[in-house]
């Protein structure tokens, strides 16, 4: 059973310096209610793992505007100019990852794989400092797992067992993040007793807490 709590109760668990994952792709499928609560709590020096930094008024972008991160690991910053500004000013450390590498590193973090070789990023800045290995005649980079203390994810539907179902492109990074954090909190638009076992995308056993959207 996943426990239903409020977004402020979630935010109260997060402390200065924690690493958080936030689901969503340009804030589609991001847990907006939880992001709002984190802004209210105003906890600083967080590290973020997210596909992107959303928009100034949506997704993890809201925490960027509030200067809550010391480090961001993402694949894209272009929709939130404040991220680039903080980076240029030296206020924020940014580690850019190719999107496919980023999601695969999160997957590795969640499934016990210690690292993997990928051709993405060979011959680019992404390769700096990484082991290169030639596999079947092709150069590949060794990439390492990513984990966080918290994963904040968003689903269209949840049940009281913590099972989650997404809608359309709202799935994106959410399912893998549910495997890759010590504490997983899912914000849901709708909550039901239980759902069709065939419809479950994120397994309830991975979800510690549920938050209703807007609560």
């Amino acid at each position, binding site marked *: 059973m996943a426990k239903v709590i409020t977004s402020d109760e979630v935010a109260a668990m997060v402390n200065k310096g924690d690493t958080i994952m936030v689901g969503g792709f340009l804030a*589609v499928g991001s847990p907006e209610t939880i992001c709002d609560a984190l802004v209210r709590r105003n906890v600083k020096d967080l590290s973020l793992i997210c596909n992107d930094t959303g928009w100034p008024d949506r997704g993890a972008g809201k925490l960027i505007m509030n200067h809550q991160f010391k480090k961001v690991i993402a694949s894209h*910053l272009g929709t939130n100019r404040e991220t680039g500004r903080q980076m240029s000013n030296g206020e924020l450390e*940014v580690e*850019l990852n190719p999107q496919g*590498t980023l999601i695969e590193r999160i997957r590795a973090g969640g499934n016990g794989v210690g690292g993997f070789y990928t051709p*993405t990023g060979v011959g680019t800045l992404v390769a700096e400092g990484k082991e290169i290995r030639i596999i079947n005649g092709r150069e590949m980079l060794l990439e390492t797992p990513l984990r966080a203390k918290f994963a904040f994810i968003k689903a269209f539907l949840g049940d009281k067992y913590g099972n989650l179902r997404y*809608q359309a*492109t709202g799935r994106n990074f*959410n399912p893998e993040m549910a495997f890759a954090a010590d504490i997983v909190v899912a914000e849901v638009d709708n909550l039901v007793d239980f759902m069709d076992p065939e419809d479950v995308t994120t397994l309830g056993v991975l979800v510690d807490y549920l938050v209703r959207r807007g609560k």
Partner: protein
Amino acid sequence: MDLREKVGRRGARLFKDGMLVNLGIGMPTALADYIPEGIQLNFQTENGAIGFGPAPEEGYDNPYLTNAGGSPLTILPGGCYFDSATSFALIRGGHVDATVLGVLEVDEKGNLANYMVPGKLVPGMGGAMDLAIGAKMVVVVTEHCDKTGNPKILKRCKLPLTAKESVHWILSELALMEVTKEGLVLREIAPDTTIEEVRSKTEADLIISADGVETVKYY
């Protein structure tokens, strides 16, 4: 006919029926508007859908259904949704038949640069690095020169690379060029230009193959 239409019309003819195609944002989307009759393509958006349709009618947008730029989409019969790990399993795993990317620079080795200008612009690579190394056919579409008239098709890229030696085709409003082991081969030119003009606007060496250069009325 504007740049977008010229590139769109010729570029769309690079596709074969049934291909899975991923179009980058900006100019690459022009190709979708000019798919020839009889060619059915599957379009992927890397945020998690295949088989999407046009933008929805007003009032019918679903906030959970967008393209990789965040704009609302519709889905067509036969379409499907998936998560990001699956999306990049498709891309990195070689299941995407063609990708079309815009660039800041591209060179005769097939290197491309399109994700940052150090100290100025750092939007990030998003899925471009994966697409460039993973798609079976990588097409770069670009204005032949930048706004100040400087060549964008170079001997060697100066900006940080998106991917090394990955481009197969370079398409501009003036010409279609193929990256080969021997170098950059000029395959086609537009009817309103000449080989000499294309050469003068290209920093890269252009090879004229024994097959010659076709002048095509795709514009």
